[in-house]
């Protein structure tokens, strides 16, 4: 009986979600009952944030696979999510887990080259190519700064990078960062302090000072 009710609700949600605007909590509840269309809406709402976080933590390689992994884990884990208002924190936590797993894989040498090497070899070449092509473009400096930020992030330890990305780039409050990383707020503050200092030093070495 409850199975039928759930599937009815899910199919109802499928038709509703095509037209009506639903709150996030409604979407999550429908996803918990198996509504794929509602999950598509959740994906559309969050994919940019997840993508950007993963890109800053893991780089370009396997980015699509990592995004897919995050959303598949989210779909699997959604029925167990009790407090729907923490969905965003929970999704960032999954992203962080996926990034950590990827980093471990790289460290174990499953991938033939580490991310930094890949970046320095392949992406650096692409970047130089972009720079060469965009020589007359007005946003040449912007491209250069973007490269510096990317390299600066790679220069940080993974723990420091995570805190800096979530707090300074994703603009999340320190309390939420602490919840995502499962560490005390004090540790977030301390890591943030050290990460910013390291980043500043790196930029100074590149000729940029504040």
């Amino acid at each position, binding site marked *: 009986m*409850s*199975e039928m009710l*759930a*599937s009815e609700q*899910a199919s109802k949600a499928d038709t509703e979600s095509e037209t009506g605007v639903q709150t996030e909590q409604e979407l999550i509840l429908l996803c918990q*009952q*198996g509504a*794929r269309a509602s*999950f*598509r809406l959740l*994906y*559309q709402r969050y*994919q940019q944030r997840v*993508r*950007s976080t*993963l*890109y*800053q933590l893991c780089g*370009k390689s396997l*980015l*699509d696979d990592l*995004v*897919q992994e995050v*959303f*598949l884990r989210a*779909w*699997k884990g959604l*029925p167990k999510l009790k407090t729907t208002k923490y969905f965003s924190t929970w999704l960032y936590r999954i992203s962080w887990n996926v990034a950590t797993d990827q980093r471990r894989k790289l460290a174990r040498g499953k991938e033939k080259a580490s991310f930094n090497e890949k970046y320095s070899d392949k992406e650096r070449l692409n970047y130089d190519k972009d720079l060469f092509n965009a020589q007359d473009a007005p946003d040449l400096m*912007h491209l250069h*700064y*973007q*490269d*510096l*930020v*990317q390299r600066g*992030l790679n220069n940080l330890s993974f723990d420091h990078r995570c805190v*800096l990305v979530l707090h*300074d*780039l994703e*603009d999340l409050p320190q309390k939420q960062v602490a919840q995502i990383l499962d560490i005390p707020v004090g540790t977030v503050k301390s890591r943030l302090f050290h990460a*910013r200092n390291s*980043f*500043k030093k790196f*930029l100074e070495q590149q000729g*940029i000072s*504040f």
Partner: protein
Amino acid sequence: MNNSHNDNQDNLISFLQRNQPIPPSAYPDLEQKIIDSLEPRSFRHRKYCKTLTWTIPSAIATGFLFTTVSMGVRTPRIAIEPKDLENFLVNNWQDTFNTHSTTFVEDSEADWLLPAVSESKQTVSVSSK
């Protein structure tokens, strides 16, 4: 000093936000690929798990109740009064004795079944002496 430090921090953060690396656009079919690879929710499995969770403890409880009712709650009886203990010992010893006496009686009965003639003969012989 503190103000300049804060300004430096703000400048750094705004620099990072302005120039944060933009991820490359996703593979065009990624969204559909993700939706297609979602596993259907298994309500049956969850229902089965729930049923199993309730069935096992209730079966144990029923078994326990059944055993208690059918066998009764047995507590060992202890002879507190010396008189009870004495009675108990006497009865048990008597039982042992009774068992013994029964065999004795059986033996004697077996003897009794022997022909009485020889007995009488013996008697006679004794008396003749």
